């Protein structure tokens, strides 16, 4: 990361304000009004629409290998995702994924 301290703090503060406004939206500003169903239906899928797309290129072209596809990292990603889906345990999935990464790096070399 090469951002200056000013840029980093700008990001932090704007992110904090934006996040607060999202949380405050209905409680504070919109109140008890009904929203169109189509709008809520799209909102429901925002995390699952953003996160996988954000990760996919990082998994396929990792920064740690300067963008070269790495079997160990692909295996680790698959393990973390599988543990997450099956056990619903985020921390377990992180530990399992990192263990798989070190294991695969050791075996593949």
């Amino acid at each position, binding site marked *: 990361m090469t951002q200056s301290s000013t840029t980093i703090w700008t990001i932090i503060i704007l992110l904090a304000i934006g996040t607060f406004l999202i949380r405050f939206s209905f409680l504070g500003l919109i109140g008890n009004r009904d929203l169109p169903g189509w709008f809520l239906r799209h909102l429901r899928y925002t995390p699952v*629409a953003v996160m*996988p797309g954000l990760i996919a290129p990082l998994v396929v072209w990792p920064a740690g290998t300067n963008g070269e596809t790495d079997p160990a990292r692909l295996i680790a990603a698959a393990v973390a995702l599988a543990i997450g889906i099956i056990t619903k345990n985020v921390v377990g999935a992180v530990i399992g994924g990192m263990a798989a990464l070190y294991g695969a790096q050791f075996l593949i070399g």
Partner: protein
Amino acid sequence: MSPSNPKAAYWQGFRAGSPFILVVAPFALLFGVVATEAGLNIAEVMGMAILVIAGAAQFAALAQMGENAPTYLVLATALAVNLRMALYSASITPHMGGLSLPKRVLVAYLLVDQSYAVSVQKFEETPKMPLNQKLAFYLGVMTPIAPLWYGFSLVGALVGQAIPPEYALDFAVPITFLAITGPMMRTPAHLAAAFVSVVASLLLAFLPYNLWLLIAAALAMMTGAQVELFMERHKP
């Protein structure tokens, strides 16, 4: 069971929030480590943990900052991850919308996945609960969660400075994302949205300024919404 007074409601909330210690502490620790590895100093790590208090969005911001994305794209991505909280805000408003403005500001600041899930469930079970008891319950839920989030972010930042770069921690960000995403795959609509998001982002990765992500996310949201509609229409 409905509590008899605000104090009882507070402790009911505290007990309901306590199991999340096991999730929040390691997650905060990981954030501190990864943020430090990414180049943030301790003040910046803590500023983000305290002011933003939204784990997934904080990781999303880190990932984008690591790619040196322009500020507006870092913000667009992280805020998009947080849009789900508008839903939380909407569904908690019938229960807590009657509070005074300063109290609603406090409730909004503390509106995270855990406080939302536990409180809405409780309020729907006991709709007659008085407003001050609902607030007490809600604050009780967050009492074990918020301080641990701050504290373990700090521990993580201190630990992160001591971890040498050989440990491939660059990959801790994607791994954490996958770990967060796995449990989100609750319905075929969620799976379809995730699939479209992955395929579109890989196909569009040649686009400049991480525009691929915004397009992939929009396509994926539409997919999720359409699959949900389709499933509703074809319910057995």
